[in-house]
């Protein structure tokens, strides 16, 4: 399979990249690790005339942690995301997602921004990021805007990105005390596997041994984009964490899921639904452990 013809640009700075995007508009695409884009170009699903390569811009590879939270550059590689201590210590579910993505070779190239830009509901990083309430900072030569990641995805393979806009950074707030998160993904094999279902859960307790103050559960592969399991979240709030309530949340999450029963998808709709239930319970368990664990 051959790549279609395109013009390759490698801007040195974010500003230069934004100018190019303004100039080429819809005929250009951002190239980060290329692990999605180049594959799709080879399959002739996409054929941009211009590729603007950004993965060597240092500014886009940062991980800034402060008492308020994290700012991650869009081009931080997935392997660096997986091995970052700053991320691993407080945002373990994001590390778990990064570790579950592809293989070492893919992780070395793949970027966090690319994982969002692809807007696949099977992607490994959005569930945890959404569960943590992450925001994305989008930049163009004309403006900069920040919005919740949840609002960034508008449909299967669709985002709010304008033609001249790029993802600049991802921001995650410092988790509140007594909170924890978990991420689980289910594939056919152990790695290098686009997932059948993935789920991230995040809960905050009102104190040690206290009730659940807030909960966010995000499900992948069961809708056009990653979905919030709203009714499962609702039932958790105000309750003491425990197996029974988690099981109930799992059942409600199954109802919140809307998997497609497409004949040729990786698994049947019924199986995906059932697995949402299982993974919801498991991730809530992990989140609970973390919320009551030594971190606080």
């Amino acid at each position, binding site marked *: *399979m*051959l790549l279609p013809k395109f013009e390759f640009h490698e801007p040195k700075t974010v500003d230069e990249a934004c100018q190019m995007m303004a100039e080429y508009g819809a005929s250009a695409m951002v190239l980060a690790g290329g692990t999605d884009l180049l594959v799709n170009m080879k399959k002739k699903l996409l054929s941009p005339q211009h590729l603007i390569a950004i993965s060597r811009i240092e500014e886009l590879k940062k991980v800034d942690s402060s008492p308020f939270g994290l700012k991650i550059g869009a081009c931080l590689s997935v392997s660096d995301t997986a091995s970052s201590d700053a991320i691993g210590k407080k945002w373990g579910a994001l590390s778990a997602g990064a570790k579950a993505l592809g*293989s070492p070779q893919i992780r070395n190239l793949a970027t966090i921004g690319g994982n969002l830009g692809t807007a696949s509901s099977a992607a490994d990083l959005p569930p945890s990021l959404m569960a943590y309430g992450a925001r994305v900072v989008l930049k163009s030569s004309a403006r900069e805007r920040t919005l919740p990641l949840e609002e960034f995805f508008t449909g299967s393979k669709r985002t709010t990105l304008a033609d001249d806009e790029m993802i600049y950074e991802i921001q995650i707030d410092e988790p509140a005390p007594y909170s924890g998160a978990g991420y689980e993904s*289910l594939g*056919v*094999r*152990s*790695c*290098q*596997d*686009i997932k*059948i279902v993935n789920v991230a859960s995040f809960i905050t307790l009102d104190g040690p041994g206290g009730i659940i103050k807030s909960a966010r559960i995000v499900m992948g592969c069961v809708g056009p984009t990653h979905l919030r399991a709203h009714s499962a979240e609702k039932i958790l709030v105000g309750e003491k964490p425990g197996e029974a309530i988690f099981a109930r949340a799992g059942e409600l999450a199954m109802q919140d899921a809307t998997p497609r029963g497409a*004949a*040729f998808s990786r*698994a*049947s709709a019924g*199986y995906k639904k*059932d*697995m949402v239930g*299982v993974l919801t319970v498991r991730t809530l368990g992990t989140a609970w452990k973390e919320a009551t664990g030594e971190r606080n």
Partner: protein
Amino acid sequence: MSQYDVIGTRAPRVDAPAKATGRAIFVDDMSMPGMLYGALLQSPYAHALIRGIDVSAALKLPGVKAVVTHKEAGLVKYGVSPARYDETIFCYDKVRQVGDNIAAVAAVDMATAVEAASLIKVDYEELPAVFTIEEALADGAPLVHDDYKRNISAEVHQEFGDVEAALKECDLIKTTSLKSKRQDCAFIEPQGCIATYDLSGNLTLYSSTQTTHYVQRSLAMALGAPVGKVRVVKPYVGGGFGSKASASHLEMAACLLAMQTGKPVKMIFDREQVFLHGRARHQFVHTMTTGVKKDGTIMALKHEAWLNGGAYSSFGIATVYYAGSLLGGPYKLPNMKYDGYRIATNLPACGAQRGHGGVIARSCWEQQLDMIAEELGMDPLELRLKNIMTAGDVTCNDLDMSSLGMKECIEVVRDASDWKNKKGKLPQGKGIGMACGFFVSGAGFPIYRSETFHCTVTIKVTEDGGTAIVSTASAEIGQGSDTTFAMIAAEGMGIPLGMVRIESGDTDFGVDLGAYSSRQTLMTGQATKQAAENVKMQVLDALSKELHVPVEDMDIKKGYIVFKKDKPDLSALKTRYIKEHREWTDNPSLDDELSFREASRIAFFTKGTIVGTGMYKPPELGGKFKGAAVGTSPAYGCSAQIAEVSVDEQTGRITIEKMTDAHDCGQAINRTSVEAQMHGSMAMGLGEALFEEVKFDDKGRLLNGDLAEYKMPTALDMPPMEALIVESHEPNGPYGAKEVGEGNIMPTIAAVLNAVHDAIGVRIHELPLNPERVYLAIKEYREKNAKQ
């Protein structure tokens, strides 16, 4: 201590340095002056009439040097089995599968060739298509080939003994089935080739193939060239597993384009084309009925198999025969009836893959035997031991187990896995299971009926006597055969491995049927041994005349001449050698023993270049019934495996915790290579058991023609593997050696099926055991049990 100096060791592979440093040359690395690139135009439809082909736009594209269709290629029918030659180089009347070949283009670069192919206009008239066995057999179903009535491309009906009578005497009769999915060989290196055509009309094809000889013959036949004008050369090959065991359209098209343009033409399959033209494992549906006595004695097997064969016959006749014949052993089975049907459909053609034809049949039966043992209250391992064949036994279908360490294999895995403390004693969700299997050590007959030798080997000693060059047309495809033959040659001549150089994979080196049916170690090994011993005799004969010592009083070992009786005065001989090499710094000293190098230099003076030849064809083999040719072999390798698994009952995901594997390969030539084959077999078997499945949409188009969505096991999916070598002595093999390449895949799937049952109490009769299938099976099982 071993009686051998070279074989039976762990000598490093002769190709290791080249491969480890990336210097080994594969087709994709090769380039030639003026080389063109070829591309194929392939059908987007599974079944359609071709009403017209217009190549004019393609020919006009700058950079295009030739476009060929059936008009240039002709309509010679070819294929694998002469009884089912059902392909032409290009389709002319209709296409029968997505990917069927219509035309090929040669151009100055790949992009131009691909673009030109897309400019060829084909006027198709779509026909209704059949994709499943049921669709193909339905009344009034469209025919894939007019010749195959009801779309049955081959059928087999055999009975040995009297099954119905035997079943009447049984205490327990059990019927079960197993349905598998199409598997792909999924080797790392896609097929590729470069064809050249010189001004004297010699065609040379460099190709990523397992069988230079069959490719040579097919090319000669289909292109109308004398065999002597066609040479096929195999560079290093990145795996074959069966898919590269016959001539492909790619090779045909490249040759045709080279002949048309007079320029070298390179063509490489992309991964999707590997799936479309791989001709790998069929989909099998087996139903078996086994009858046993209360004490576990197996009395009879009634077996029906349905194979989804795809658009062309390829190896399919052999496949459907193997699916039946390979159940004749390794258990004593006096009565066996087999009805096998291979069905033509409009999916890509299937052919041979590791464990040809036998793997799913074996899996079905070995699961059934486990169920029978359970009902009889017997340990399944004991049930097998009770019925086990030993060396000298002959199966009801005339397979002669000239050596058989099957019993030893079972005992070895039983002890190594601690079976007795685990079987039935592991906690819920964890399980252990075992199975056995055996396989031919080389097909007894060539694919085409012939009196040909299956292989010829030449060994030539360089004039200085320092190096022996082994020339064989056999195929090193990653399995280590070059190392094996270098070791056998060294042993046979009595010299160190370092003095042997091997050149292989070129039809100019002689005849060798190639790397399939696990034949090379035994067959090419025999020919190599014979050639090596022939060299040794020639050297000793020359020496005998010089020294007046009878040949039988001498031998060669570790590179030196051994005088069994009195050592003669060697000074004159040694001085002659030294005089030949005045000022050389590495001359042997006068006091040293007489070396092979000196002796063969002396032999060269009287005989000229010392050339030893060897050849092999199997002795007369058993079986006079129709189809006896498939399954008969000079020897059989066998193995037993124990799988330990854990099952996540909430998700249905299986984790293989450990594999314990024993294989009887006769004398191991290279122990490391034997273990590597066992590891590779297990990986391929576990993939088929757990994940692998080629999928199509309802138009016969591939859904997962890439290695992201076609899921082979990754390193992380592989469990710890214990590979234990059992060495029987095979009288028909070189130094007692026989196969390990394919036999070892036989037990894997069934061992997993049986372990899964041990873990969760559920029997599953469809593959692969992906999480959803296992989850649903558990759910169904629980619902059924709840009702009761």
